[in-house]
């Protein structure tokens, strides 16, 4: 391999890498130490000589207590989790079925449908939110979790279908053919032979869909109005800024607690997530 001098490695590798790491992680560090910082330390102006903003000298749980007492934070967390799980579940089932049909079955219009689903994949939420709010209201779904459980799949199903279609295509056809010779129906072969083999792909799609649901904002902002129906991002935005006043300690505590669950889920499935991410852009 190519041999490098030591100083070169420092200049061209360690130094930029360190800058990237600091740039990437500093906001989270800042979020975390702010969440545990008492107000008198928090509001020290930038010019104050003895201000030491990079470390919290007297960590406190006052913001945690405040958040729990004054807001419905645990409810938001629960809502976000339930909505993300159900939306992911619906999208996975639809995506597995549709992906299998597009990958394996011959029928007229399959190419057209594949392209159509790919196009819906690229439709952003901000294009349709105004009429969608009316549709959700007309279906009596407004301010219920179902409003989000049914609309989040609009951006998850295309992704799951696309990813799983690619995955199914890599599974040898012979597997199904053997099962069919042994008397399995098409549907049975799909459920009992193909789906189990595709579990890594299904996990990738699922974990990616879960993080996308957790992150969604504009639909939740528009469809959910009462405080006990909100998701974490919407609750934090709408309930922790009162008038013009930002409760920074509680805001950062809320942001931290809203980030931790998704970060934990992610940390368990990093490899699957990366597969989902890189697969999401492959044709």
């Amino acid at each position, binding site marked *: *391999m*190519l041999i490098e001098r030591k100083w070169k490695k420092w200049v061209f*590798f360690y130094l*930029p*890498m360190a800058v*990237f790491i600091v*740039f*990437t*992680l500093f906001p*989270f560090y*800042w*979020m975390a130490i702010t969440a545990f910082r008492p107000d008198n330390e*928090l509001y*020290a102006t*930038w010019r104050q000589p003895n201000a030491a*903003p990079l470390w919290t000298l007297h960590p406190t749980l006052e913001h945690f207590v405040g958040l729990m007492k004054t807001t419905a934070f645990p409810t938001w967390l629960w809502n976000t989790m339930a909505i993300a799980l159900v939306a992911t579940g619906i999208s996975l089932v*639809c995506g597995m*079925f*549709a992906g299998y*049909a597009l990958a394996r*079955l011959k029928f*007229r219009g399959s190419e057209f449908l594949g*392209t159509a*689903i790919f*196009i*819906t994949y*690229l439709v*952003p939420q*901000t*294009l*349709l*939110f*105004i*009429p*969608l709010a*009316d*549709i959700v209201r007309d279906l009596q779904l407004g301010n219920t979790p179902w409003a989000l459980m*049914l609309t989040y799949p609009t951006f998850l*199903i295309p992704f799951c279908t696309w990813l799983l279609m690619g995955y199914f295509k890599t599974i040898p056809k012979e597997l199904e053919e053997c099962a069919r010779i042994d008397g399995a129906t*098409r*549907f049975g072969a799909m459920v009992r032979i193909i789906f189990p083999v595709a579990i890594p792909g299904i996990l990738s799609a699922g974990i990616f869909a879960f*993080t996308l649901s*957790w*992150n969604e*904002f504009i639909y939740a902002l528009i469809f959910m109005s009462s405080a006990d129906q909100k998701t974490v*991002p*919407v609750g*934090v*935005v709408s309930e922790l800024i009162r008038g013009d006043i930002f409760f*920074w300690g509680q*805001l*950062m505590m809320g942001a931290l607690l809203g*980030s931790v669950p*998704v*970060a934990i889920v*992610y940390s368990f499935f990093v490899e699957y997530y*990366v597969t989902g*991410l890189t697969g999401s*852009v492959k*044709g």
Partner: protein
Amino acid sequence: MGRGRARQDLHLRAEQVRVSRLTRLLESEKALAAALLAPGVAILVIFIAYPFVMALWYSLTSIRVGDPGHFVGLDNFTKALNDLIFQQAFKNTVFYTFWATIFKLALGMWLALLLNRSFRFKRIVRASMLLPFIIPTVLSAFAWRWMFDPTFSVMNWALYHGGIITDRLPFLSSGDWAMWCAVLVNTWRGMPFFAITLLAGLQTISPDLHEAAALDGANAWHRFWNVTWPLLLPVTLVVVVFSVIQTFSDFQLIYVLTGGGPANSTHLIATYAYQIGVGSGLLGEGAALSLFMFPVLFAVVWVQLRYLKRMENG
């Protein structure tokens, strides 16, 4: 007793016939395909195709909250084109998308090249690099807003005590600065997506090619431009398309960071459409504003589809 049994048998047989008829039906590829596609397609039709048609209709009427309005032709669109704030929002959107994409591509590529080397703790570094992309944007945008705070900014503190500045930087309170701050935060959030996807592309490039080029006397810079870049171009194009769509239609980052201010200097099409459509309840005008995104997104998707077709054909 015997009659009851006979009836049960009959019932059972009818059930069997029904089941076998269903299974036989599902043995036909067409029928099975239709059944498998139905649930997903139904959701996409109800919640994407139908609202899209409705958005087109809304944009041609004077509908507002509590008033169905009437047909007004293209009035909403001409009004938008003459609206100074919308002109500003459109320019902002192009500016934001252009610069954020450039930075994400450049930094993401650099990061991918760094991550492609072998070093200690590589897995954990790579995993943590993706955090900005995983953590809900609204929540991390708040952290950034707090870092940009006019009075308590940690960045002003660091620059001041580092002797780089003598007066505070305005960050989000000045129009020019605020837009660049938004570009910075968007870059921070989107860079990992570029890096990790490009890294996956890099890993498919054989090291032999680099060694051969190195033996021919190419330095690292030349090797990048003549070996890595051309081989990575297909992945790069797809990632850029995805990122352009996401950035062009962005809403949440601006909503939290600046709310479109100061003085509309950071309004994007989506945030302005939200303000008009949801804030003021002018649904028709809001729908028209959103639809201004459509031609641009359509062009990008079209390029992408053509590209995919070409890949399939050869």
